[in-house]
């Protein structure tokens, strides 16, 4: 089993010292015995695995295995659905984000999210879309500071050069790929610790997808990233760690295997993982 199951070039690992430096500044998360419910239906059962700092953790698995539910548990978005609830713990740098003393709005500010379909605010310009998150916390931002935040965020999302001359245009006038990068810039503007991405490229064409994947590789220098994807090649290209979920008979998502991307794609321990990544199931 030394031959990779999916044809990918496994990226060159960084020197250990630089990696240690990055991990010291980025946040880590831990999922402990996490279960999620919609009313009586249990969507996720008893998940436990770490989310390593300054690295990309990909969640893969067939449709309906609870990938999206899982990622929505990481920033407490799941509980907004009527009847939805969660049990277990999700730690951000050792603090349980489900602690009753913790404000979910604060959790969501520290753990940014990018959605499947680009969703820039249609009534706001590119400029105001980037600032939307900051304006929730501070209604007045001095113009020079606002300009600086907009430029920094758009540069971080590798969108600045494409939109710097049309910052006043509505966010929805950009192309799909640009809109998604605008949403990333919007999430980065409020300086999160972790970035969640729920199938961020499933609505995009291959070139826009390529740009987003390049961006993810760039962003993990500073941010801890969790990405849900149903595209195995994508997981292999961008991820450092992979969690494989499977729904089973009663459609309750369970963690089948968690390991480094290298291990999962070249030498999975579980038979189900191997069958899934070689295309036999799912």
């Amino acid at each position, binding site marked *: 089993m030394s031959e990779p199951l999916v044809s990918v070039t496994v990226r060159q690992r960084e020197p250990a010292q630089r990696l240690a430096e990055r991990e010291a500044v980025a946040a880590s998360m831990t999922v402990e015995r996490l279960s999620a419910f919609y009313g009586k239906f249990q969507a996720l059962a008893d998940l436990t695995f770490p989310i390593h700092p300054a690295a990309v953790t990909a969640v893969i698995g067939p449709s309906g295995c609870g990938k999206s539910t899982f990622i929505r548990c990481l920033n407490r978005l799941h509980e907004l659905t009527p009847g939805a609830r969660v049990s277990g713990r999700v730690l951000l740098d050792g603090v349980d984000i489900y602690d009753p003393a913790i404000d979910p*709005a604060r959790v969501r500010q520290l753990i940014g999210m990018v959605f499947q379909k680009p*969703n820039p605010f249609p009534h706001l310009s590119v400029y105001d879309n980037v600032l939307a998150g900051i304006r929730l916390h501070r209604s007045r931002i001095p113009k020079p500071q606002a300009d600086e935040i907009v430029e920094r965020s758009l540069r971080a999302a590798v969108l600045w050069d494409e939109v710097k001359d049309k910052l006043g245009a509505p966010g929805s006038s950009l192309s799909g790929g640009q809109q998604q990068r605008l949403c990333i810039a919007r999430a980065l503007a409020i300086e999160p610790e972790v970035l969640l991405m729920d199938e961020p490229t499933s609505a995009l064409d291959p070139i826009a997808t390529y740009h987003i994947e390049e961006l993810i590789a760039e962003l993990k220098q500073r941010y801890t990233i969790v990405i849900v994807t149903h595209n195995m090649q994508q997981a292999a290209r961008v991820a450092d760690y992979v969690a494989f979920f499977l729904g089973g008979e009663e459609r309750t998502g369970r963690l089948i295997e968690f390991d480094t991307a290298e291990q999962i794609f070249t030498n999975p321990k579980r038979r189900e993982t191997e069958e899934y990544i070689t295309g036999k199931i799912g």
Partner: protein
Amino acid sequence: MTGTQLRTTVGTDTEFQPRLPLRRKVGAVFGALTVVAMAIGLLTLAALIVDVVRDGWTVLSWDFIRSFPSRRPSEAGIRSALIGTVYIMVLVAIIAFPLGVSAAVYLEEFAPKNRLTSFIELNISNLAAVPSIVYGLLGLGIFVRALTLGPSLIAGALTLILLILPIIIIAGREALRAVPPSIREAGYALGASRWQTVRMFVLPVAMPGILTGTILALSRAIGETAPLITIGALTYIAFTPKSLLDPFTVLPIQIYNWVSRPQPAFHQLAAGGIIILLAMLLTFNGLAIVLRARLQRQIRD
């Protein structure tokens, strides 16, 4: 193979018969029927406008707009009615809009989805269908008598507000429901509270729809006669209201008054009043269309 299949429109030896000519004929007949239906509505409006303009054209002048009503048709005008209508509409708009939008926001964004909420929703739809005269009786009982406001400007405005509030609430809820859930999620994911999400992201996107609904509701209120007569609005007023508690009249009442006179000269005055009322109404509706188009363009591209 495909070429021959395309050319012979009716498959001879297969079970499946597309019957394209028949389908095309049915389509054409139905198309013609819809054109007739549309023409009936349009011709009615055209006939109405032509008839009214022919009758009332001669009385239209600055004097007609500037003068108070009079016993002598040659001196009569619509000043008090026009000003009364403008006052009433302004009052109705500034009170009904925030009330209606707030109620819609509560029902759509904050209320728990349970039986009580759906019971309230059902009854708001019922209220929108209640005949306007019933609202007149309600206004007479509450505003004119119980609150002793008398047949005043404010009592008239409050009565009309009750009448159009359900319409604004329904239009507002539909506009809010049309905002995609992804917008709300984007707001929450940035750390917005529920109220911030509604105020900063959902309401602005729903605003074109809300405004259109409100303006259409107002244009319903502008033509109402029965509830205002019920609360005791005067049919003859030779002064303009100076305060909210002064008596008033509005254009439809003035028109009704003139039409019920026997002299033909007053009928011409009524036609003149109708032209002014229709012009205001069309201006309102035009405004709604322009507003919607502008806000939507802003949002779309």
